[in-house]
């Protein structure tokens, strides 16, 4: 009996530790600006709620020359990025890394990819289509083309990715290599450097965490 009681204390703590750690699920942060809004309940009382920054409505031509909107990404989480097909610097690495994630989640319809081209002069839908085929990806990964103001605007204001034209650069455009993780409520839940293997590994770990949020 004495032997048992000696053992029971560590066992108790072990169980306690398990229980608390199980409850402590990791959650991804929500990025972007937020504001507090006062909402009136039905019974007349008020409460405050925070309103998060979300991706606004958009309308772009995809690789099949079809206009797509946010509806395409309804009830999906998706990874967005900005690139152009003739880019010889960071884009191939970004898409090499994103492709490995794509291959991992091929059978999961809940996750999609959205690559915006910033080369509004050359990257027409037919060029994007060819690029997608050569990269070896299907419709789960959308490539979109749009007017400069709209693409550059949504990049900087909403996805928080810097993009610009640069006459001095060999390829003509400069942009950041972020892979931006968007949840089903259009909120930014992460941004990962698509050229950095460690950062991409973190994205690989974060996707299941985000998916788990909706599995209830």
């Amino acid at each position, binding site marked *: 009996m004495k032997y048992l009681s000696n053992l029971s204390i560590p066992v108790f703590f072990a169980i306690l530790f398990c229980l608390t750690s199980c409850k402590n699920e990791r959650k991804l942060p929500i990025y972007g600006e937020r504001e507090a809004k006062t909402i009136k309940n039905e019974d007349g009382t008020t409460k405050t709620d925070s309103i998060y920054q979300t991706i606004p409505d958009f309308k772009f031509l995809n690789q099949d020359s079809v206009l797509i909107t946010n509806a395409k990404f309804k009830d999906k989480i998706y990874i967005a990025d900005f690139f152009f097909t*003739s880019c*010889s*610097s*960071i884009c*191939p*690495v970004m*898409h*090499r890394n994103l*492709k490995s994630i794509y291959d991992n989640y091929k059978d999961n319809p809940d996750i999609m990819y959205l690559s915006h081209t910033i080369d509004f002069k050359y990257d027409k839908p037919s060029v994007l289509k060819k*690029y997608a*085929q*050569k*990269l*070896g990806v299907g419709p789960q990964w959308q490539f979109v083309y749009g007017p400069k103001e709209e693409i550059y605007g949504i990049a900087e204001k909403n996805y928080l990715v810097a993009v610009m034209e640069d006459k001095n650069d*060999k390829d003509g455009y400069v942009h950041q290599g972020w892979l931006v993780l968007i949840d089903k409520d259009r909120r930014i839940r992460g941004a990962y450097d698509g050229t950095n293997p460690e950062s991409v590994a973190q994205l690989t770990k974060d996707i299941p965490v985000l998916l788990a949020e909706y599995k209830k």
Partner: protein
Amino acid sequence: MRKTFIAVLFFLTIASIIYSCQSAEKVEQDMYYTNGRDLYIKHCQNCHGAKGEGLGELAPPLTDTLYLKENKTRLACILKNGLSGTIKVAGKEFEGKMPDFNYLADIDIAQLIVYITNSSGNKQGMYKTEQVATDLKNCK
């Protein structure tokens, strides 16, 4: 006894002379290889991959030893001037454009060629800097 000793010593001397000659060449090739690897990481790896595996049908792999061997005198031109049109590598057709790297010096090109033709499963030995000038003259 003394005769054998001298004979062995003589043999050893000759052997070490030959050996050190070869290793001087080997040292030069290793130097090219190492510098070539740095250049590769900087200029080529983005598209062709860390292991020369290529990228889908966008960038061909560098593991097709036969292609590299048959086109060895063209490699300098491809690096310097880029490449467009269709090529067949490792049984697949690649159509598109590789950018030019015209700012590379002859020695950089030689080092890159040594690295590319001796990594990713290739083992094609030394390629000297002087060869670059000769090959560049014959670019099509």
